[in-house]
C-alpha cells in the first residue's frame, strides 16, 4: 500500500551533472511433457457410469487444458445490463465501523464479506465482517459483524445474534469451508490478533471452535485465508496469510516518518518500514482439529512478506493444488504443490511475483478465472493507485504472461486503489468480465493537491473475447459511479434468478448490493457441487461447461477477491444457448463425471458419483 517512486523525476530533467540521489516516497499450449502428465493423471481417475437425468456420464481423469476452439463473435455490440443499487430494498442495515482519519494501518484493512448458505436452503446468505477503531479498542469497545439471512424475496433478515457470530474479533475478512466434513458450511474469520473458526451447528447457530480446532495459537494480524484440500485426503486444510507486525501498544505516530507520508502529506504509517508476519498452513487432522504444517510444507513465508489475500487453485492443471498469496508491495508467492503436502515457491519462475517491469506492486485482491476459454485459470490482482490492476494470462505449465496493457485493464485501473475483484459474467454471454471495487487508504488525500480521492467509483470491464477488455464503468448505471471506500466484494446469484449480484462491503458506511438489470436476454446455468469422497463442499472441483462451441471452466474456491468469499456455486452464462451440451466435473479427488444435454436457466445440485440430485429453475426476483 505504500509505494516507492520508481524513477526519481529530478534525476531525469534536473540540470546538475551529478545524479541526484533519489528519494523514496514514504512508497504458450499443450506440450509433450504436459500431455504425458495428463495421461498419467487419466490412468488414476475413476470412471463413472451414471444413469441420471438427460445425458449420461462417463469419466476419464484428464483435466483438459486445451478447450475446443470456436468462432469468435464479438460481445461488445450487444447491450450490457445496468448495475442497479438494490441495497435499500434488501433491508440490510449493516454499517462498517471506521475511524474518520484512519490514523493507523489496522484501521484501513478490514471489510471482507462472505456469501455463505449457512442453512443450506439454496439461497446465499451474507456475512459482513466489522472492525474496531484503535480508539474503540483502547476503550474496550467492540464492533458487531453481521449475518443476514436470505428471505428468498429480495430481502434479508439480520440473524447475527441468534447465529452467535456478531463479535468474533477485530475482523478483517471471512471465508467458507467445511472443516469437519459434516456438509454444513463453516466460516473462518481473520482478525487482527488471529483467526476465529465458527462451526456451523446446522440449526442456524455457530459455535466458536477456534481453541478446540487448535487455531487459537495465532495472535498475528491475519488477513487472507482459504480452505483447500492440498493433500487430497478428502478434508479441507486451511491457509492463513498474515500482514504486518502491528502492535497497538507501540504504534508509530501518524505522519511521523518517511513511511507515513503520501504525496507530501501526513498519513498513517506502513506497511513499509514495518516488520512483516509469517504465514500459516494448517493440516486438517480429520477429527475437528488442525496441525500447523507451515514450515514443513514450505509456505511459512520466512521472509515475512506483507501477506493479504490467498487462494487455492490448480494453476498448472496437474491435478494438484497450488497456492497464491498476494503480498502488499512485495513479490507474490505462487506455491506449486506436489499433492503430498510440499510446496515450492514458483512466484518468480511463473511470472506472477512481479509486474511486467519487474516491480513488486501493492498486491491486494485476487480474481481467478478462465477469461480466454483456454481451460487455464488466469489471474487479476488489484493494486494501488499509482499502479494498475495486473492481468496475468495463464499460458500453461505454470507460466503466466502479464497482459495488463494489451488487454486494456491497466489503462482503466490506474488512479484507483483496487481491493475486491472478480471475473464475473453479468451479461451471461459466457465471457467473464472484470469487476473491481476501489477506495483509497488515506482520507487525507482529499485535502491534498493531487488527483487522488478517498472515495472512488467501481470499475467494470467487458470481456471482448479476444484478450481485450472494454471499460464500461461509466455506462452501466449511476450506482457504479457512486464514490465509496470499498474493500471486500463477493459475487453470487443471490436470488436464484440467473443473475450475478455483487455484494460490496465498504470500509466507511453501508455496503452496496448491485444487481444487473436489462441487457441481452442470455441464458445461464448454476451448479452446486457436493463432495462425497472429496471434501464435502467440493472445494477446487472444476466444472467444464460446453454449450455450442463455447467451452467454459469454473472452479469452486474458498476465499479470494479481497478477504472475501464468493458464492460456492458455479455460475455460467450461456449466451443464446438453451442447453448445456456437455458438463464435465473434475472432482478434487481426481474423479471425473460427465453429464450431457442439461437445460439452461436452472440451478443444479450435483453430488459426487450421483450426478444431478436436484435442480431448480431460475425465476425472476419476487416470483419464488
Amino acid at each position: 500500500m505504500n509505494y516507492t517512486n520508481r524513477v526519481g523525476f529530478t534525476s531525469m530533467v534536473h540540470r546538475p551533472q551529478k545524479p541526484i540521489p533519489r528519494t523514496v516516497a514514504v512508497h504458450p499450449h499443450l506440450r509433450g511433457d504436459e500431455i504425458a502428465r495428463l495421461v498419467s493423471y487419466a490412468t488414476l481417475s475413476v470412471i463413472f457410469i451414471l444413469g441420471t437425468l438427460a445425458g449420461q456420464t462417463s469419466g476419464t481423469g484428464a483435466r483438459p487444458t486445451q478447450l475446443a476452439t470456436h468462432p469468435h463473435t464479438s460481445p461488445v455490440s450487444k447491450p450490457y445490463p445496468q448495475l442497479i443499487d438494490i441495497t435499500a430494498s434488501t433491508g440490510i442495515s449493516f454499517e462498517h465501523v471506521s475511524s474518520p482519519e484512519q490514523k493507523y494501518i489496522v484501521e484501513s484493512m478490514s471489510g471482507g464479506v462472505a456469501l455463505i448458505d449457512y442453512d443450506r436452503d439454496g439461497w446465499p446468505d451474507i456475512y459482513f465482517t466489522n472492525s474496531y477503531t484503535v480508539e474503540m479498542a483502547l476503550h474496550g469497545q467492540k464492533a458487531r459483524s453481521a449475518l443476514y439471512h436470505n428471505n428468498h424475496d429480495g430481502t434479508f433478515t439480520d440473524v447475527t445474534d441468534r447465529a452467535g457470530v456478531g463479535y468474533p474479533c477485530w475482523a478483517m475478512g471471512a471465508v467458507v469451508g467445511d472443516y469437519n466434513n459434516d456438509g454444513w458450511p463453516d466460516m473462518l474469520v481473520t482478525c487482527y490478533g488471529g483467526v476465529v473458526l465458527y462451526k456451523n451447528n446446522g440449526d442456524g447457530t455457530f459455535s466458536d471452535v477456534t481453541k478446540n480446532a487448535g487455531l487459537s495459537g495465532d495472535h498475528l494480524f491475519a488477513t487472507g485465508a482459504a480452505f483447500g484440500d492440498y493433500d487430497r485426503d478428502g478434508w479441507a486444510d486451511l491457509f492463513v496469510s498474515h500482514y504486518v507486525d502491528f502492535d497497538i501498544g507501540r504504534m508509530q505516530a501518524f505522519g511521523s516518518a518517511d513511511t507515513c507520508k503520501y504525496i507530501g502529506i501526513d498519513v498513517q504509517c506502513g506497511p513499509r518500514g514495518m516488520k512483516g508476519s509469517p504465514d500459516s498452513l494448517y493440516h486438517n487432522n480429520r477429527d475437528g482439529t488442525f496441525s500447523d504444517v507451515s514450515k514443513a510444507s514450505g509456505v511459512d513465508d520466512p521472509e515475512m512478506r506483507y501477506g493479504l489475500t490467498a487462494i487455492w487453485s490448480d494453476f498448472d492443471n496437474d491435478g494438484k493444488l497450488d497456492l497464491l498469496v498476494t503480498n502488499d508491495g512485495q513479490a507474490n508467492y505462487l506455491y506449486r504443490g506436489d499433492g503430498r503436502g510440499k510446496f515450492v515457491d514458483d512466484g518468480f519462475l511463473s511470472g506472477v511475483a512481479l509486474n511486467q517491469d519487474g516491480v513488486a506492486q501493492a498486491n491486494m485482491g485476487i480474481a481467478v478465472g478462465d477469461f480466454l476459454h483456454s481451460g487455464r485459470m488466469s489471474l487479476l490482482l488489484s493494486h494501488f493507485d499509482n499502479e494498475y490492476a495486473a492481468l496475468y494470462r495463464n499460458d500453461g505449465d505454470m507460466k503466466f504472461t502479464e497482459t495488463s496493457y494489451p488487454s486494456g485493464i491497466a489503462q482503466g485501473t490506474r488512479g484507483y486503489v483496487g481491493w475486491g475483484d472478480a471475473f464475473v459474467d453479468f451479461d451471461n454471454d459466457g465471457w467473464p468480465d472484470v469487476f473491481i471495487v476501489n477506495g483509497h487508504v488515506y482520507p487525507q488525500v482529499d485535502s491534498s493537491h493531487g488527483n487522488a480521492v478517498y472515495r472512488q467509483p467501481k470499475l467494470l470491464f467487458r470481456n471482448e473475447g479476444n484478450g481485450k477488455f472494454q471499460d464500461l464503468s461509466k455506462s452501466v448505471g449511476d450506482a457504479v459511479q457512486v464514490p465509496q471506500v470499498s474493500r471486500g466484494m463477493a459475487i453470487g446469484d443471490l436470488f436464484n434468478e440467473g443473475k450475478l449480484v455483487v455484494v460490496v462491503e465498504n470500509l466507511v458506511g453501508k455496503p452496496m448490493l448491485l444487481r444487473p438489470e436489462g441487457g441481452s436476454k442470455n441464458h445461464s446455468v448454476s451448479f452446486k457441487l457436493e463432495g462425497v469422497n472429496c471434501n464435502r463442499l467440493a472445494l477446487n472441483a472444476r466444472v467444464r461447461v460446453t454449450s455450442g462451441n463455447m467451452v467454459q471452466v469454473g472452479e469452486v474456491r474458498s476465499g479470494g477477491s479481497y478477504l472475501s468469499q464468493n458464492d460456492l456455486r458455479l455460475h455460467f452464462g450461456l449466451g443464446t444457448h438453451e442447453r448445456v451440451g456437455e458438463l464435465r466435473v473434475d472432482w478434487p479427488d481426481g474423479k471425473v463425471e460427465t453429464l450431457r444435454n442439461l437445460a439452461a436457466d436452472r440451478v443444479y445440485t450435483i453430488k459426487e458419483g450421483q450426478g444431478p440430485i436436484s435442480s431448480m429453475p431460475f425465476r425472476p426476483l419476487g416470483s419464488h
Partner: protein
Amino acid sequence: MRLNWVSTQVKAVLHSRVVPVLLLSLMLATVPLMGQSPSADDQRQTAIALEQQGKTAESEAAWRAVLKAEPNSAEAYAHLGFLEARQEHYKEAIIFYRKAKALSPSMPALDMNLGLALFKAGDLKEAVQIFSRILKTQPAGSNEALRLKTLIGMADYGLEEYTAAVPYLEEATAADPQNLSFRLMLAHSCLAAKQYQCVLDTYHQILDLNAESAEADMLAGEALDEMQDHAGATQQFRAAVKANPKEPNVHFGLGYLLWRQGQFADAATEFQAELTNVPDHAKAMVYLADSNIKLNRTDVALPLLRKAVRLNPNLDMAHLDLGIVYSDTGHKAEALRELKLAEKINPENVNVHWRLAQLYRAMDRKEEAAAEFKKTKALTKAADESVSSRLKTSAPRKTTSSSGSPNVD
C-alpha cells in the same frame, strides 16, 4: 542539453557583470619598494603606466624587464599574473601569482587575485579555500565579505556542493534582489539539496522578476514532484510549456511526469514535441518508444529505439525496450542480444533480469532462466531491505495515547 547546466551557468555568471566588477575592484596595489636601483624603479614606473593605459603587451614586456633586473621581484610576478588574467590566461596567471606569493606571502590583494584566477580557471576547490580564508579577515556585513560570500556560493555551486552553496547564495540574492542568475542558481541549489520549500520560495521571487520564466516553472515542478505532489508538478510543467514551448527539456519533463502516471498517449505527445525541438534527444526518443509500447504500438516504437541506440548506445532502457519488442514479436535471438546489452550497461536493473528470465524461459533454457529469476529475486529483496533498513534508522515518534496492548478480541 540541460545536463550541462552547471558548467554553462557558472560560465555565464563568470562572464556576467558580477565577477569583472569584483576583479577590477581588487586590482593589485602598487607598493613602492625600498632599495631598488634607479633604473629598475624607472622600469617599474613605466610598466605600471603602460598597465594603466591598457597597453598589455608593452606592460608585460616592461615587467619582464623589471624581473630581469630584479629576479626576485614579487611585485613584477604579481603584475604579470594580473596581465595574464586580464587576457583570460588564467593558468598562466596562477603560475605568476604563486611565484609572487612564494616571494611575498603577505602582499596585499594577491590572495584575492589568485583566488579569482583559480575560480575562473575552474579550480573551484582551492578558490573556495582562499576565499574562505580571506573572508575571516573581513568585517562581517562589509561589502568585501558579501563579495566573498557570493564567490564562495558560486564556487560551491560549481563544485556541486549544493547544501553548502545555499546559505551563501541566499545572502547574495538578498543583497542583489534583481539578479535573476543568482536566484536561478539558488533555486537549483535548493532543489539539489532537497530543500524543496526553498525552491518554491525562490520560484515565487523569480516570478516577480520574470513572470514568464519557463525555467522557474520547471524548477518548481521538480520540487513539487520531489514533494510527492505529482499533480502540482504536472501543472507546473504545463505552465512551463505555456511560458516557453521551446525551453530545452520542458516537453520531456512534462512527458516524463505523464509517462510515470501511466498517461502514455499524452506523454507520447510531449516526447514528440521535445523531439521537434531537439531532434536528436535520445532520451525523449526512448521514452516516446516506451510510451508506444505501452500503447501496443510496437511498430512505431521499433524505429525510434533503433535510432536512439545509434545516437547513444549506452541507454539501457533503449536496449531493454528493444529486447521487449523483439521478444514480443518472436525474435528471440535479437531480444537476447539487446537484453544482454542492457544488462551490461546496468547490471542492477531488476527489470532487465526479469525480462531475461522470461525470455530464457520462453526459449526453454531452464538453467539460465532460473539464474535470472534468482537474480531478480535477489535484487528485489535487496531493494526491500534497503528501504527497510533506511527507514529503521529514522527513529519514529511514539504516540502518547496508547497505553499498552488492549484486549482486542
